[in-house]
């Protein structure tokens, strides 16, 4: 059923995808102007950096031998000025790079969140929520750093290499060539390390995701764990995940940290070679000053190379996150507005199922050729064994899933032809899972109609008989409830959720086990309010309590992938079929004392 549990996160291939980089480009594109400005500032900074060794070589070769104090003062002033300008450049760069990164981060996260809103139930049902969460918040943070700081630093490093190179060439071409003699070696080493590192980081991200998902579920399910005293075993499982993560981390850094030493050794060998070549000739004849400047440049030159290597490292590890984020963005919502979708006109409440065949999974149909027609204002009770598909019917009317064959028509319009928003705004469902958001009770009820006034909200609460317990709370409607309403009882959550649905004032109302956890006394009271409300609305009610069912206009008994019996309570009792049996069971049970 689940795509993957916390135990496995699919590993990606070892190649990275060029398409991904194009997509990154798309995120940077809106800011190209500010990127260019940052660039200009970086070029300036680089020139200042190059200035150092250049001025040093002048001092060593000219100023000191000529004892030219005036020149020394001028050089000092020039250099000081450059340092101050560089300070200003750093100031500009610091803030603007952060801003750029934060903008890109915001855009990406917002895009991902928007996308998530469009995804269907089946997406959420098949993935641990912890993993979705990690992608939206954590992975994107890692990426933003890579995109803003990373990309700009890389470009600045490349620029500084180019500038340095230009200076070196202008000083001495042969020596410049010597400086690069070991570059191919570095290149090969980087390639080898990179490939291994990518694999290692991929493993690490898998282990990390597994560990986080497990921690997340451990916390969410702690009450169950404690009542089953499973603490010991969970601790062992957790330890295993934690240890796997530790091992994966060590494997990854063991490879990652290799690059630095290689680069440094190659740089030192190059410097040694420059000294040797400069002093022993080897086709070069340079002054001491230039030799010293060259040594400085080689450092200037290798530092960016080390940085490039580091960037490559983080790019390699970051690409793993990037792919997981893009993978999520690429999930196509299975339910979406069709191209020519139009607004659903105000609904009268005529609902028709025409030859509907549906199953959550290929080859496992819940319904085959299901047909029924409900007139506006009718109340339909859906009964039948658990798992027969009562909730499925209600899910289909709100178009949480699409039918495989046939069609569902509301007021004669195929629901696939209208926009989801306009459909769901007029079809109100109270789901089996009540979900309470953290916030006040008032806000939770208002969720059904965002512009509802306080009076409307209180009115809805009154109708569902939630008023009394809310008033008993510390701050009545302003009482803040925690995530998932953990401080409320199940019945209270149902009442709030009920009020929320009523507030939405839908023309087609679906109540899926809306009152299962509500006690009989409250339910009697609630029923009165509900009867008034049901007038003029089409309603589908899934319930087990026959007292609720009896009041409906028609009852559908569902089983064997179709409607086995349909009719009013009296008709079905007369028929002495399945409903009659169901009905007998309950009354017998109650009478048998």
């Amino acid at each position, binding site marked *: 059923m*689940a795509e993957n549990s*916390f135990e496995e996160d699919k590993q990606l291939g070892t190649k990275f995808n060029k398409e991904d980089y194009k997509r990154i480009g798309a995120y940077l594109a809106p800011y190209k102007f500010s990127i260019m400005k940052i660039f200009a500032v970086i070029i300036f900074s680089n020139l200042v950096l190059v200035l*150092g060794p250049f*001025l040093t070589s002048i001092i060593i070769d000219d100023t000191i031998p000529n004892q030219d104090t005036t020149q020394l003062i001028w050089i*000092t002033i020039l250099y000081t000025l450059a340092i101050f300008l*560089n300070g200003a450049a*750093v100031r500009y760069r*610091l*803030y603007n790079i952060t801003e750029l990164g934060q*903008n890109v981060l*915001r855009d990406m996260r917002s895009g991902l*969140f928007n996308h998530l809103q469009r995804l269907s139930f089946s997406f959420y*049902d098949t*993935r641990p*929520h912890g993993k979705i969460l990690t992608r939206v*918040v954590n992975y994107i943070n890692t990426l933003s750093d890579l995109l803003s700081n990373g990309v700009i630093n890389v470009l600045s490093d490349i620029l500084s290499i180019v500038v340095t190179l230009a200076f070196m060439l202008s000083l001495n071409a042969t020596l410049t060539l010597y400086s690069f003699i070991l570059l191919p070696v570095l290149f090969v080493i980087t390639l080898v390390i990179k490939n291994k590192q990518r694999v290692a980081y991929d493993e690490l991200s898998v282990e990390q995701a597994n560990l986080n*998902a497990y*921690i*997340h*579920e451990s916390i969410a399910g*702690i*009450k*169950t764990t*404690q*009542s089953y005293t499973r*603490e010991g075993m969970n601790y062992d499982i*957790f330890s295993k995940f934690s240890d796997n993560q530790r091992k994966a981390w*060590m494997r990854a850094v063991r490879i990652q940290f290799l690059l630095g*030493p290689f680069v440094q050794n190659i740089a*030192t060998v190059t410097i*040694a070679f420059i*000294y040797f070549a400069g*002093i022993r000739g080897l086709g070069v004849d340079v002054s*001491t000053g230039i030799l*010293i400047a060259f040594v400085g440049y080689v450092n200037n030159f290798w530092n960016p190379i080390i940085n490039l290597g580091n960037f490559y490292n983080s790019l390699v590890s970051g690409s793993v996150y990037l792919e997981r984020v893009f993978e999520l963005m690429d999930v196509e919502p299975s339910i979406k507005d069709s191209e020519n979708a139009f607004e659903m006109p105000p609904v009268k409440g005529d609902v028709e199922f025409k030859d509907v065949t549906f199953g959550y999974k290929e080859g496992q149909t819940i319904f085959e050729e299901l047909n029924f027609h409900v007139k506006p204002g009718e109340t339909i009770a859906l*009964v*039948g064994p*658990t*798992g027969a598909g009562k909730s499925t019917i209600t899910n289909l009317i*709100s178009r949480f899933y699409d039918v495989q064959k046939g069609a569902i028509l509301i007021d004669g319009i195929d629901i696939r032809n209208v926009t989801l928003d306009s*459909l769901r705004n007029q079809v*109100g469902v109270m789901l089996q899972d009540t*979900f309470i958001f953290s916030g006040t009770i008032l806000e939770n009820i208002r969720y059904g109609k965002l512009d509802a006034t306080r009076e409307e909200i209180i009115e809805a609460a009154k109708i569902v008989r939630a008023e009394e*317990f809310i008033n008993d709370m*510390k701050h009545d409607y302003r009482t803040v409830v*925690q*995530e998932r309403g*953990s401080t409320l*009882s199940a*019945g209270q959550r149902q009442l709030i959720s009920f009020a929320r649905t009523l507030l939405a004032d839908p023309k087609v109302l679906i109540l899926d086990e809306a009152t*299962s956890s509500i006690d*009989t006394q409250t339910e*009697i009271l609630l029923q009165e309010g509900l009867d008034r409300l049901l007038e003029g609305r089409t309603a589908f009610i899934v319930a*087990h309590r026959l*007292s609720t069912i009896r009041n409906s206009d028609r009852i559908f008994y569902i089983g064997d992938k179709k409607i086995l019996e349909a009719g009013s309570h*009296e008709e079905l*009792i007369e028929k002495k079929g399945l409903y009659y049996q*169901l009905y007998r069971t309950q009354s017998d049970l109650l*009478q048998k*004392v």
Partner: protein
Amino acid sequence: MASFRWVWQYIKPSKVNWFWASLWTVLVALLNIVTPYIGGMIVDEVIDNERGSLLVPLLIIMVAATVLRTVLRYVYQMMFETIGQDVLFQIREDLYVKLQEMDFVFFNTTRVGDIMARMTGDTDAIRHAVSWVYFNVLDNIVLFISAIAFLGGIQWRLMLAMLIVTPFIGILTVMLSSRANAAYYEIRESFARLNSMVEENIGGNKVVKAFANEDYETKKFNKRNEDYRERNLFSARISRTYLPVLETLAGLLSVISIGLGGFFAITGLMTVGELVAFNGLVWMLNAPMRNIGGYMNDSQRFITATYKIREMLSAQPLIPVELQRREKRIRGEVAFQNVSFAFADDPDNKVLENISLKAAPGQTIGILGETGSGKSTLVNLISRFFDPTEGKVLIDGEDIKNWNVRELRQNISIVMQDVFLFSDTIKKNISYGTPKATLENVQKMARVADASPFIEKMPEQYQTYLGERGSGLSGGQKQRLSLARGLMKDPSILILDDTTSAVDMETEVKIQEGMKNVSYQKTTFIIANRISSVKNADEIIILSKGKIIERGQHQELLQKQGAYYDIYNEQLGRSEVEEG
């Protein structure tokens, strides 16, 4: 300082490695001097004094020193990484154990996102400090000190001129870090809000869609997202004030080196070689100054993280978990003596008031009552998820507080109203409390709970993976899995908290029949709204606003013609009329 002392206890087990790694760090920092120093010697000795034979040996020393330095660096880096990972592992484990011990009140009032932040972001800040920041700071300190020593050795006047700049750097750094600290706190808080919001959105995705509130959610999200961006920019504004100044001061060192150094060389106070060496070592003064700001930030993050983690580790569960066991099977006698209960945050609002009841081993108690009347709280007291505010709960005649709480819970199965299923196979979910159970046993209990028909219809049957919280299953299916899970434990006390509310009557009857065989000799508490679920109980109690308003057996209660009678009539009465 307390933070460092605290983290030291985690480093302690690896203190020998820690010591050696620190030593290598110092050594490597010192080896940094070799390359520029040799550079100076080459200029002075080889070029100026024309001692060409020295060139090759000097270059060999230079390369050898670099090889040694990089190898050693790699070694100590790996040592610190290992230690950091061990520390991380241990802290995370301590947190996990602590969480397993915490009580329901804690989880009712602490957001999952906050706990996640402790377990991931905060522990990582500590790891980063242990395996990265520490040695870098050490490295920088050694660099700085040795730079002063070497530069002073070459030309002390020039070195002193450079030191003028350092106090400014110190002052600026302190100012930066104190302001940055507050900004970081804000960022973290903002991030936590963002995180919680997304988490709720994912968890409540069905409700969001049912009300077509996607736009509203997006707006809410955009606000948080924008806030997070703003906080980050605010922090960048602080950096913008200080860091460029630090950078400029560091750059001025090079100016002093060239300008004043050049002057000294002209006036003969220094050789050109010395100037070259000096110049080559300036970065050793420079780099620590440039880096100090970043490490200050890391240290602040480390300190904040340790506070948060220590706070969580030192939290005391209201229900202490003791380790000593008594290995006694509970018979199942449960007694409440004048029990009252109120949550600590709302002490005036009594959830339960003056409850007394007694259940002999094997008896069944039925509990009815309005929504929010305290039914679930009452049974939670039996498993000791809360302690009564007044009065006593006795199990087998002994105060519940004298029992080892885990042992107690091992003997009690509570099938909760909120069904939580884990993303694992159906078999593992059913055998959650009894991991060693055989498939036969699991199947047997699934049959009793009438879960087997739908499980066996699934292609992978008991090996089917469930989604998070069992999403994809209907309410009735989840309840039946949860019931099977509760029965697997074979407890002395069985608590069914509205376990069959989403199950139809026929199924409930089947389940009741099946349960007769397995719940024999178990003390059973049944919370329900249906009369049919409780009518065979040895005692039925009716709660209203935390008080028992009626009690007795089915027949007695009917004769009383009170609340129970009304409920009974409502559930049955009208159908009788129509049937006739």
